[in-house]
């Protein structure tokens, strides 16, 4: 085991795949000698730069992702770093509608093994927090990985690179340089579409992802003192959604709270909650509940930002309320 941050683990995962498969390469703005914003590609230039597999690009997001689709169609396995998920609107045509649909258009002949990396989230790097991944949840053909721990991040990245579909790989900035995690030294993948129960409990299922997993675990600890046992399901992938793990947990606890940092209204929390309401209705002891960011743009001022995003206390309060019903 080695101990790494999420940023280090992701880069290590990419480097291992680049060593394993000469078709894997990476491109994006500032990823070369500079090592990528927030060190997102640190060390890749030194190891692979001379072979032309670490490509600095101009500020042409749409063209870069479009080129990634093209390179994937032509047999390579590109990774594109678009810096921030806030730029998803600039690449949605290329990633969602071109990348996602090519396999279908070609009646299965073409494959688009493309990974698009993007940093996001309300965190220490105050800026670029937007997260509209729900768009891609509705877009056929694209997968979405959303790691909460360094270990999962590395395994998901390796799975994403080996996958034959376009994958949006979401890297939360508040987790990036945070806690170190024990990482196996041997080769491993975390398969796309497999959630993990990060803490077992009998009373309430909290379904979360990324930074909200940590908040849910903190809330679970607080509630354990009151005798309320929360089961924390970390989605790890938004697409494919691990319906079985979600529904199994809800069957056990009978209560479900879906938590995400993204805007709650019309977001992927709605899909998860609707799924539970449709499929687990008879298991539910209380109505399903969602927690997410208010339906406002993310404001700059700290006092306004706090008002907009759910915290540990909100999870505790919601879980407590569910149990009381």
């Amino acid at each position, binding site marked *: 085991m080695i101990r790494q941050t999420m940023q280090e683990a992701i880069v290590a995962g990419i480097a291992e795949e680049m060593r394993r498969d000469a078709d894997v390469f990476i491109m994006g*703005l*500032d990823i*070369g*000698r*500079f090592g990528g*914003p*927030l*060190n997102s590609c640190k060390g890749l230039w030194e190891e692979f730069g001379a072979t032309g597999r670490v490509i*600095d*690009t*101009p*500020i*042409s*997001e*749409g063209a870069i992702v479009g080129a990634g689709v093209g390179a994937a169609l032509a047999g390579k396995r590109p990774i594109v770093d678009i810096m921030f998920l*806030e*730029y998803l609107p*600039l690449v949605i045509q290329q990633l969602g509608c071109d990348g996602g649909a090519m396999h279908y258009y070609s009646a299965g002949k073409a494959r688009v093994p493309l990974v698009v990396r993007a940093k996001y989230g309300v*965190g*220490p*790097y*105050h*800026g*670029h927090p937007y997260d509209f991944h729900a768009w891609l949840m509705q877009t056929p053909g694209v997968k979405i990985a959303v790691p909460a721990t360094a270990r999962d991040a590395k395994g998901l990245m390796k799975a994403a690179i080996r996958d034959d579909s376009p994958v949006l790989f979401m890297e939360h900035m508040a987790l990036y*340089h945070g806690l170190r995690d024990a990482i196996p030294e041997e080769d491993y993948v975390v398969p796309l579409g497999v959630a993990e129960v990060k803490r077992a409990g009998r009373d309430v299922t909290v379904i979360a992802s990324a930074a909200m997993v940590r908040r849910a675990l903190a809330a679970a600890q607080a509630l354990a003192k009151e005798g309320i046992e929360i089961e924390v399901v970390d989605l790890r992938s938004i697409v494919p959604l691990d319906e079985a793990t979600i529904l199994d947990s809800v069957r056990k606890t009978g209560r479900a709270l879906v938590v995400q940092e993204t805007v*709650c*209204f019309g977001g992927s929390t709605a899909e998860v909650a609707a799924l539970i309401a449709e499929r687990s209705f008879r298991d539910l002891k209380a109505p399903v509940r969602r927690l997410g960011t*208010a*339906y*406002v*743009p993310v*404001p*700059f*001022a*700290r*006092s*306004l930002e*706090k*008002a*907009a995003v759910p915290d540990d206390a909100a999870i505790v309060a919601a879980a407590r309320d569910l149990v009381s019903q």
Partner: protein
Amino acid sequence: MVTLSLDEGLRLYRTMARIRAFENAAEEASRGGVSAFGAALSASVRVRGPLHLSTGQEAVAAGVCAQLTTADLITSTHRGHGHTIAKGASVERMMGELFGKVSGCNGGKGGSMHIADFSVGMLGANGVVAAGIPIAVGAAHALKLRQRNALVACFFGDGAINRGPFLEGLNWAAVHALPVLFVCEDNRWSATTATGAMTAGDGALARAAGIGVPGERVDGNDVFAVHAAAAELVAQVRAGQGPRLLHAITYRVKGHVSVDPATYRDGEEVDRALQDDPIPAAAARLRAAGVAAEALAQIALEAEREVAAALAAASAAAWPDRAASYSDIQDTGSDRWLV
């Protein structure tokens, strides 16, 4: 400086001095901010969000905006403090915005990357490269349709010419002969990547010429040259001849954001750029024209005092009320944000 009065020269100098003082103070206040570039966020930081400084680029903002009237509009970039000050915004309200205080020109909702002051015709900085170009074009189109005798100055960086809106926006402005002065403020760096190596062909001016937008290249560190070139192009735009492009060559002496040490750059390149500081260069020219050194020192001192007062006011100002999170979004359905 042939066509420039001493008063005008001193005004340009004062604008540059005010921008420099603002950027220096903002840089200082941002230490410990944005945890990019390896450093952790300090709990006591005053300017916590990404801060893109225009230090060393003051001559472009000062020279261009001196040719604008209060009726004229501007759009800006993520590196927009200089343009905002030069267009006449209050330094105190700008600093309040950087601090995220209710006294800020955007009430704390925008921060540095979205700083705006509509009362002086400053239609906003922008967090997305090249996104201000179509907005400037549309604003100019509105001025034309509303038969207003005014123009839009559209500032963007060298990196923006590699995004689609540059082509689309210039084409549109040329097709409709819109009153836009496009200003490519070329500081040679796209975030942490040298733009030259990423840009095919002969750059902004050549691309503009291909679309039928004439322009001029100018030493963007010579405020008097910028002022003169802008005068000529602005006159053509005001005469109804259609859009023009000013390609001002300058240099980004700071990192991409204020906490970026920019170690990816060649030290000699930065040293050379520091030798070419637009403010001492302007001072030397003014001195040669007979301005006393004390007068220039006095201007710098006043600028620093103004900024010190702005810092104090920003520190003392209140935070926005949480309820402000839920205003200024829409009128339609405006009671339902907490869904």
